[in-house]
C-alpha cells in the first residue's frame, strides 16, 4: 500500500533495514538558497550526503570573458550578495595587480572600512539565519535590525543597499562625506552593545550549547585538507587570515587580532565569528581615525582606467564617430598588459581568490573565481557524516554558505 510498507517489508534482503533517501532542497527553508542535498538516512542519522549545486549557476566566468574589466565588477556583486563590497575588492585587487597600479591611501582606507562593513553585515546575516535554523527566532530579528542600519549606511555611501558596485579599479567611486563618517562612528560606538543582546539570548544558553557543541568537529589538519578557510578554519585553531598573511588595502596599518577556536566544533566557529564582529568594529574605528590624515586626497588613482576600455566585442551599432568621441582630457587610456594576476582577500565567508589571465585586450581572457562557499559546500558530506538531520541544518548554518557565491 504505502511506500514505506514496501521498504520495511523488503529491506535489502540481509535483514538490515534499507536506508531512507530524502531530498533536502532545493526549496527547503534552511538550505540558504537553492542547495540540494540528497541524504541517505538511517533513522535520523545521515549515512551519506550528496550535495547537488548549480541551481543558481549564471556563468559569471564565461560572461566575464565578454565584458571589460570594470564591467565585471558588476558581476562580482552578484556572487556573494550578502557582502558584495568584499567581492568588488577582490576583483579590483586582481585587476590592479595586472595593471600595476596602486590606489591612493584614502581609497585604501575607505576600502578597508567598506570591507569590514561587509563583514559585519554578512556575519549578522549568518548569525540571524544560523540562530533561526536552530530555532532561536528572536536573534534573527535583532540581527536584521542592526544589519538594516549598516545597509542604510551603505546606501548613503554608494546609493545601493546590496549590490554596491562601489569599488573601482584603482580606487573607489565616491568619497565618504562627513555625514557618513559621523553615522559610522555612531554605529561603531553602539554596535558592541548590540552584540550583547544576541549573546544574552544564545551565548551560554544550554540548548544552544547542546546544539552546537561537538557538532561537525574538524581538526586543523582535516580542515586544511578540506580547503576550509575563513572563520571555519580559524574555528579549528589555524590562525590563517589573508588580512594578516598577505595584507591588502590598509590592513597592514591597522591593528586587529585573529580569533581562533580550540575544538573546531560549531560552537567554536560561532565564537570566532562573534569575536570577529568586535574586531571588525575596531578596525572601522581605527580607519575612521586615519581618514582624517588623508582629508581631501583623491580616491581614484591617477592612472586608473576609465570605465570605458575599448571594447571589441560590444562595439555598438552604428559606430560612433571616432574623432567626435569624448575622450577624457589629461589622461591616457591605459592598456591592460598581457599576463596573469592572482589576488585573494579575506571575504566574510572565507578566502575569495581571483585569478585573471589577460591577453592585452579589453576583456579578461580568463577570470577564475575561487569562492569560499563552493569549497565549504564540498565539505558538507565530510562534516555531516554520522550526524542527525537537525545537525545538518546547524552545519549548513555554521559554514555560512551563499549559493550565489557557490554556483557563480
Amino acid at each position, binding site marked *: 500500500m504505502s511506500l514505506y510498507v514496501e521498504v520495511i517489508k523488503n529491506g535489502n534482503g540481509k535483514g538490515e533495514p534499507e536506508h531512507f533517501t530524502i531530498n533536502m532542497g532545493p526549496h527547503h*527553508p534552511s538550505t540558504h538558497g537553492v542547495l540540494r542535498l540528497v541524504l541517505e538516512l538511517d533513522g535520523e542519522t545521515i549515512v551519506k550526503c550528496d550535495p547537488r549545486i548549480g541551481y543558481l549557476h549564471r556563468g559569471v566566468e564565461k560572461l566575464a570573458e565578454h565584458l571589460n574589466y570594470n564591467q565585471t565588477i558588476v558581476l562580482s556583486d552578484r556572487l556573494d550578495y550578502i557582502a558584495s563590497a568584499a567581492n568588488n575588492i577582490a576583483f579590483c585587487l586582481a585587476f590592479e595587480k595586472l595593471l600595476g597600479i596602486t590606489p591612493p591611501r584614502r581609497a585604501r582606507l575607505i576600502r578597508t572600512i567598506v570591507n569590514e562593513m561587509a563583514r559585519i553585515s554578512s556575519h549578522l546575516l549568518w548569525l540571524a539565519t544560523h540562530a533561526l535554523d536552530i530555532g532561536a527566532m528572536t536573534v534573527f530579528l535583532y540581527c536584521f535590525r542592526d544589519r538594516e542600519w549598516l545597509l542604510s549606511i551603505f546606501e548613503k555611501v554608494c546609493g545601493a543597499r546590496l549590490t554596491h558596485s562601489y569599488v573601482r579599479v584603482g580606487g573607489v567611486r565616491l568619497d565618504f562625506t562627513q555625514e557618513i563618517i559621523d553615522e559610522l562612528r555612531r554605529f561603531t560606538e553602539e554596535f558592541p552593545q548590540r552584540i550583547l543582546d544576541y549573546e544574552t539570548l544564545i551565548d551560554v544558553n544550554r540548548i544552544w550549547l547542546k546544539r552546537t557543541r561537538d557538532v561537525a568537529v574538524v581538526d586543523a589538519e582535516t580542515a586544511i585538507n578540506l580547503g576550509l578557510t575563513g572563520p571555519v578554519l580559524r574555528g579549528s585553531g589555524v590562525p590563517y587570515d589573508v588580512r594578516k598573511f598577505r595584507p591588502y588595502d590598509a590592513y597592514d596599518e591597522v591593528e586587529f587580532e585573529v580569533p581562533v577556536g580550540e575544538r573546531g566544533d560549531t560552537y567554536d566557529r560561532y565564537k570566532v565569528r562573534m569575536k570577529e564582529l568586535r574586531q571588525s568594529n575596531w578596525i572601522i574605528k581605527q580607519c575612521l581615525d586615519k581618514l582624517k590624515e588623508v582629508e581631501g586626497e583623491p580616491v581614484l588613482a591617477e592612472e586608473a582606467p576609465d570605465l570605458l576600455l575599448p571594447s571589441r566585442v560590444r562595439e555598438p551599432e552604428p559606430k560612433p564617430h571616432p574623432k567626435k568621441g569624448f575622450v577624457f582630457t589629461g589622461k591616457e587610456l591605459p592598456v591592460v598588459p598581457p599576463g596573469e594576476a592572482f589576488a585573494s582577500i579575506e571575504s566574510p565567508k572565507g578566502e575569495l581568490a581571483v585569478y585573471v589571465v589577460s591577453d592585452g585586450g579589453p576583456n579578461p581572457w580568463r577570470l577564475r573565481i575561487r569562492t569560499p562557499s563552493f569549497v565549504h559546500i564540498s565539505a558538507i558530506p565530510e562534516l555531516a557524516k554520522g550526524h542527525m538531520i537537525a545537525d545538518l541544518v546547524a552545519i549548513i548554518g555554521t559554514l555560512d554558505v551563499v549559493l550565489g557565491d557557490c554556483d557563480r
Partner: protein
Amino acid sequence: MSDIIAQIPYPLLVFIVAFILLNLTLLHVAYLTYAERKIIARMQQRLGPNRVGPRGLLQPIADVLKLLQKEDIIPNNVDKSVFKIAPLISLVCAGTGVSLIPLWEKFVLSNLNVGLLFILALSSLSAYGVILSGWASNSRYALLGGLRSSAQVISYEIAMSLALLSVVLMAGSFNLQDIVKAQVASPFKVYLIPQVVAFFVFMVCALAETNRVPFDLPEAETELVAGYFVEYSGIRFALFYLAEYFGMVVMSALAVTCFLGGYAGPFEVPGLPFIWFLLKLYVLLFFYIWVRATLPRYRYDQLMGLGWKVLIPLALANLFVTAFLKLYL
C-alpha cells in the same frame, strides 16, 4: 435564576453549557494566535499584525475565513481516508479536555471522578492524529515528523503523569473539582509552593506535549519544513493548528487547576466568576509565547535524553518525597 436553570431539562442544559464552553474556548484559541503574533512581534521590536481591523484585531477571523475558502488539496498518493480523518482526531482529542476543567465552582461540564486520567488519556490520543497524518501523507518529511512526535509524546507522557500524580497524592482524588477544593484547604492555598518541582516538570512536559518551542521537533520548520502536516492545506491544515492551540489551552488550564488553585482567588470578584481562572490561564499562556520568542530548539535525541534522564527521575523523586511526607506527617 436558579429556578430557570432548574426548569431546563438536563440534556438541554448540558448542551447549552457545552455550546458556551466550546465557543468560549474557540474564541480563546483564535485570539491566542493573535496574541502570540502580537506579543512575539513586540518582543522582537516589530509591529505585528495590524492590517485587519483596528490594531489587527480581526486578523484571526480573517485567517480562519481564508483557510476555509482555500482548496483542500489531497495529494495523489496519500491514504485518503486516514489523511482526511487525522486532523479531526487531533482536534477532538485536544479539545475535549476542556469539558473536564472546573472553570468555576458551579461551572464544570462533566465532573468525572477520574477527570485527570481522562485528560491524560485524551492528550495521548491526540498523538494518534499526528502519527496517522504523518503516515498517511506518504511523504518522507511527514513520516519523520510523525515518528518524532510519537516518540516525544510517549516519553513525555510518563513524566507528566508522574508530576500530576504527586498532586493527586496530596489532594487524595482524581476529581479536578476535588483537587481545587483540597488546594484551597491546604496551608499554602496553592500546590505550586509545595510541588514546585512537579510544576516545573509539568510545564516542561506540557511544552513538549503540545509541540511548542523548544520542543517543536515534529514540525521543526527549518528541518522538516512543516513536519507531519507538510502535505495538508486549507481547512485541514487549520485543524492541526487549532489542535495545537487547543492543546495549549487545555494544558494551561490543567496546570491552573492542579497547581495554581484553579478558580479560587485571594478575594471574590462579584459578577465575574471566571476572572481568577482566566487570569491565571493567561499568565501561563503568556509564558508559552514568551518561551517561544526566546529559546532555540532541542535536537531529537537530546529531547529524549532530557525526558528520560532528567524529567522522569525528577518527577519520580518528587513523587516519593511527596508520598513519604504524606505518610509520616
